[in-house]
């Protein structure tokens, strides 16, 4: 069986003052994923290696990792595509907890802030909410997000300014705003309208390139800019029931 050189970033907070590199050599064939290789290393070479994983089939979004500097899912990336060897590091733009594990709290806070769930009145008489295929098509691609955080590792704006809501949170806000069953748009717009909402994006577009599920967060953010502009214009012309600057007082 052929073998491949793998260089892993290690960091054990109790022992190491800074992250460092460690080399391993793994056996692989055409079906060996990066995650398989990590399991091989942990089982046969160094049981202290830490990494996050769960489903092995690009559904759970746990095994996000930098492969040669590019954000990838370990389970969906194969050693056969890296004949010159590969270098694994924890996801960029997040604080490192241990070895290949990052602290994703900031991303989860942003996700919580935009209320990524259906805010809807119950359908009359216990009937299901009906939706036409055209209504489904408006938001469907944005609903494929698995919260893996690869787009945050790719986003230079999130790297520069961690308060920026970021690609996945904005894409999911947009996904629910576009859903015909949802009536929570007004609750989400305040977050999207801020400097750290859609306006924190300068349309680099790398988030959409790295997304392992084919979601196009950059499109969501830029459609969100149009929605936010319209929201501002409507707010401006709407007769003020309450003082207009109420939401700006905080």
């Amino acid at each position, binding site marked *: 069986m052929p073998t491949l050189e793998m260089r892993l970033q290690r960091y054990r907070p109790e022992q190491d003052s800074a992250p460092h590199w460690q080399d391993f050599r793994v056996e692989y064939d055409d079906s060996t994923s990066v995650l398989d290789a990590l399991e091989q290393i942990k089982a046969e070479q160094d049981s202290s290696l830490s990494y996050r994983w769960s489903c092995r089939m690009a559904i759970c979004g746990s095994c996000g990792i930098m492969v040669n500097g590019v954000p990838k899912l370990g389970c969906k990336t194969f050693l056969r595509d890296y004949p010159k060897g590969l270098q694994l590091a924890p996801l960029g733009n997040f604080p490192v907890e241990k070895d290949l594990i990052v*602290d*994703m*709290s900031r991303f*989860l*806070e942003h996700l*919580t*802030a935009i209320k990524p769930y259906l805010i809807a009145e119950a359908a009359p008489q216990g009937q299901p909410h009906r939706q036409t295929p055209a209504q489904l098509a408006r938001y469907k691609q944005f609903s494929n997000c698995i919260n893996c955080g690869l787009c945050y590792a790719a986003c*230079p704006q999130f790297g*520069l300014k961690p308060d920026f809501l970021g690609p996945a949170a904005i894409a999911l806000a947009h996904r629910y705003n576009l859903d015909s069953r949802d009536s929570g748009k007004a609750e989400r717009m*305040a*977050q999207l*309208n*801020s*400097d*750290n*909402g859609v*306006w924190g994006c*300068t349309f680099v577009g790398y988030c959409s390139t790295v997304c392992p599920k084919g979601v196009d967060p950059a499109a969501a953010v830029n459609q969100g*800019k149009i929605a*936010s*502009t319209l929201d*501002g*214009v409507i*707010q401006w012309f709407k007769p003020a029931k309450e003082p207009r600057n109420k*939401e*700006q007082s*905080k």
Partner: protein
Amino acid sequence: MRTNKQDTPQTTPRRSDEPIWWSLFSAGGVCVAMLVPAIALLVLLGIPLGLVSAEQLNYQRLQALVFHPLGLGVVLGAMVLPLFHAMHRIHHGLHDLKLAHGRLAKWLCYGSAVLLSSLALWLWLTVSMASG
């Protein structure tokens, strides 16, 4: 996975003024995308290939076009909006390159767009009033 509920933004954030600058940027982008290729086609291909006579684009004719009452559209489309487009890009480019961000860079960028636009509009008004 740990979530710190206390860090979750609870207050309503301030509405950004970015829609104003972004709208001007977008409008400028559309104008640049439409006008620049047309001008390039006329000047770089039309004249050398003899499809357009250079005489038709002489100074007097262009001056008459710009300072015609409808020429205000030319000033807006070819100068004012593209200025805002360019300064918006420079403003965000400075942030991307970690060179400058914050109030001063914003005032300098959009301020110069406002200043140069005002100058263009003032010149247009003075010349068109003087000519008639």
